[in-house]
């Protein structure tokens, strides 16, 4: 049961900027949710509030009923895996080691500082690498891989945590359209097979329509839409992206590229 419950979440930065204004939503366990919105709408911030990379100003975030507090940050992050736009792998380390870092939340003993892992961790790493199809490149240095491959390593790292939730912050923004479809497909498959709750930030509306169970629209820190892809009409899109007179889908895509 890994619902994510956001109640009246507000985030104000020290310089006064209010990135998230009173957002409430309930993300069902095992669902695939996409967050849409223009640049600067707060999509990244919202995601990072869920795993504690940003701290809440007011409101609460509960994962599977457990509220997130300063004390249990490590425990929260163990249960929530994250995939990043720029992959955020340690470039000089091998693919295997990068995946193994997903296990660090579970291992706090001294040996982990000497790069020592248990056999079960190695098995988990192998399994996730098979899952994302990268066993052939297991021992390569992470920065020698292509963009799509690096992102798959990022996903493997998240999977290695055996998470209940996977957050993905613009996971395909740096990838070409074909690879983007592969990555989104992989994420969707993980959601279906393992029952992991997946929340993805995207700016490609078509991908959202194609893969999401549910779409959340964010604009200037406020929740402006919460529904199914079917309910995502052009009028709704206008509200999300605040553009008048855009009806044609394709033109919208272009406009969104500049949003």
């Amino acid at each position, binding site marked *: 049961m890994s619902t994510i419950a956001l109640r009246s979440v507000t985030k104000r930065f020290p310089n006064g900027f209010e990135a998230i204004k009173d957002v409430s939503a309930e993300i069902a366990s095992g669902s695939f949710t996409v967050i849409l919105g223009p640049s600067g709408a707060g999509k990244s911030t919202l995601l990072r509030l869920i795993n504690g990379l940003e701290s809440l100003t007011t409101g609460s975030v509960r994962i599977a009923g457990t509220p997130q507090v300063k004390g249990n940050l490590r425990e929260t992050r163990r249960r929530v895996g994250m995939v990043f736009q720029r992959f955020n792998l340690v470039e000089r380390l*091998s693919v*295997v*080691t990068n995946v*193994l870092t997903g296990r660090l939340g579970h291992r706090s003993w001294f*040996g982990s500082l000497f*790069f*020592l*892992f*248990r*056999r079960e961790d*190695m*098995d988990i*790493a*192998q399994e996730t690498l098979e899952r994302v199809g990268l066993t052939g490149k297991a*021992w390569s240095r992470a920065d020698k891989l292509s963009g799509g491959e690096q992102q798959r390593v990022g996903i493997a790292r998240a999977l290695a945590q055996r998470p209940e939730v996977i957050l993905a912050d613009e996971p395909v923004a740096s990838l070409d359209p074909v690879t983007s479809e592969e990555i989104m497909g992989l994420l969707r498959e993980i959601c279906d097979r393992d029952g992991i709750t997946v929340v993805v930030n995207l700016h490609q509306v078509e991908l959202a329509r194609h893969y999401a169970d549910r779409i959340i629209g964010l604009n200037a820190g406020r929740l402006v839409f919460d529904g199914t892809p079917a309910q995502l009409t052009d009028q709704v899109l206008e509200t999300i992206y605040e553009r008048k007179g855009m009806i044609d889908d394709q033109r919208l895509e272009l406009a969104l590229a500049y949003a």
Partner: protein
Amino acid sequence: MTKGWNWRWPTRSGLPPLAAVAAVAGVLLMLWLTAPLVEIDLHRILGSAGKMAAFAGDLMVKPDWKYLPQLFWKMVETMEMSFVATSIALVVSLPLGLLAARNATPHVLVYRVIRDLLGLLRAMPELVWALVFVSAVGLGPLAGVMALAIVTVGFMSKFFAESIEVVDPKQVEGIAAHGAGWIQVRLFGMLPQVLPDFVGTVMYVLDHNLRAATILGFVGAGGIGFDLIMSVRLFQYDRLLLIAGSIYLVVTALDHLSNRWRSRIIHGAAA
């Protein structure tokens, strides 16, 4: 993929990477082999903590305030030594640096010879040069200034040469294409590009030379060093703290000043 053990390293064989093991083992071996040379004695180390505490206690005496004027002038002398040595070295290093730069030198042989010569100048620590010069010109700040100047020339010339070697060749070509003479090309084409780094180097050198100048007096080459070593030998701890404190203060103050100046001048010059 998994072998018999319960714990593994993230490598194909499960053992730690060879380079890391070799490096660590090598260092440990060297330490063990050279321990007798350095007279590492565990008893002494443990005992020394007590001795150091006792010594620190001895230092806590009332400072000899009457010593302050002499201290002040000695510190001034130290700073002056650093300043003069750096200035002399600056004047010598500019042409030498040009000759030691592959793209500015008149002939490859000149470049080779000068580079090697500079390496020799740099190789000896300032204090050794100071010993030699004290023997040559007698006690006093002159020996110290000469020692500092020589080593500084070695360092500054090499640095200038390296800066000159990375100038933008297009800018130099532009000057040369207008029929500029040999010196003019270097003066107007290369030197202006090197200026910001040049200033940074001079600041760093001034700072370094001040620290070096504080100890040249150990061998009688001028500066506060002589007073310093004497205060220890004669157990004049009331002076020792004052001297050490003032050295620390002056060095730190100059550090801050030079950092601030460096950014001001570099950004001003680049404008």
